[in-house]
């Protein structure tokens, strides 16, 4: 069991948002059928994370990181803007559970978008915990790239 060091700055990542910073942060997020990609630059030791709810943007509303295709691109752009080279980035993918009452398999489609995005951009997948039927709570350490994770049954507001 791991305990979280409370002296490190924390950030709670809401759905449809993304976060990347050169300073060390412990980023927490809660995932149901949503997917989060954690990108980590091994050389410069910093990372970023997104949290999207649906696979694709359909031109309705704004092009926000609520949608996988937008969120993944924006996260990678943000990493690059902070000085990363694509070749030094590794990724971990979480979430995409299928809630029992969902018949359209949003979780699965969210996972597909994440994995194909990483493949297209030749980003190495360092680990993943996806699918299943239970939600996840993850804490991403942007300084080491490590992720703490636990399965959660009782979810409030996690999509």
């Amino acid at each position: 069991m791991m305990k979280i060091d409370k002296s490190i700055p924390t950030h709670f990542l809401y759905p449809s948002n993304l976060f990347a910073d050169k300073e060390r942060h412990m980023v927490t997020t809660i995932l149901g059928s949503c997917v989060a990609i954690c990108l980590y630059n091994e050389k410069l030791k910093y990372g970023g994370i997104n949290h999207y709810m649906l696979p694709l943007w359909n031109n309705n509303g704004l092009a926000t990181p609520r949608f996988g295709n937008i969120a993944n691109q924006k996260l990678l752009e943000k990493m690059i803007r902070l000085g990363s080279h694509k070749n030094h980035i590794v990724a971990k993918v979480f979430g995409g559970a299928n809630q029992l009452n969902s018949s359209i398999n949003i979780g699965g489609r969210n996972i597909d978008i994440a994995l194909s995005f990483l493949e297209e951009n030749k980003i190495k997948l360092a680990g993943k915990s996806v699918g299943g039927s239970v939600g996840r709570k993850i804490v991403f350490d942007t300084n080491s790239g490590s992720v703490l994770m636990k399965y959660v049954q009782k979810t409030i507001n996690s999509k």
Partner: protein
Amino acid sequence: MEKLTDEELLKELKKRFEMNKRMTYIQKELMSDLRRANEKLLASEKVQSQFLSNIRNEINNPLTSIMGLSKELESEKSISDQCSRKIGLIYSEASKLEFQMQNIIVAAELEAGESPLYVVKVDVDSLLKSVIKSFEYFSSKKNIKVVYKTTFPKSGKKFNTDSDKLKVILSNLVMNALEFSEEKSEIIINAELADANTLIISVEDYGEGIAKADINKIFERFIQLDSGSTKKHLGHGIGLSVVKSLIESLEATIDVKSKLKKGSTFTVSIPQGYIKDQMSSFSNDGDDFLFFDDEDVEVI
């Protein structure tokens, strides 16, 4: 196939070799052009993101001064009527600008994924009144009567939601209703709690209305149904796409009923949000986590 003599073959080979060389050269040129363009793009991205974070105060501060001072001057007794009218115009134009700027900034934040939820206890009644008040100038200019109906208890029922986001949603709906209403008409705003956890607010106008076929288009980015040379309304088609994205982040829904030439009703239905403490500490099994680091390790 045609047979070539040695000499012809040599000539052909030489020709192809030259062509190849030229192609490689062109390719190299193109590559370096591409690289330069890419560098430029990255630089402009960087500038853009810094620009957006700086722009808010740089624009809002002078605008607030213009609005505050013109409002003050307008009611000054020592100036002529004509002058006061002109000052009123300065105020109304500045507040339109402020409204548009707010939409642009909110859209930029949403698109950058930097728009977290701040759920607090909101006094919806006061919020609605303040939104209506902020458009008093426009409604009185067009002589539009804004009717506000509510079934909230007088004590001021508090509802958990993101107050800033709700305010932007309502401002846009009211602004649209005013913009598309005829002069001397009426706008009806109705707010009620459908049940303890659902807030329903509707904004009804008797304006131009939207054709059935166009209803789905109105939430698209940069779409204005009367664009081009016939455009007679304010804005740049960003308001409702902002509303839609904000509605999504509040996990709310929006419903549009409209009839051409008869008017439109926009109804939002907002679920009670969770205050952050509840949200991040929802699981009461403590801060014990399993370490997840190696490839394909599923920790249960």
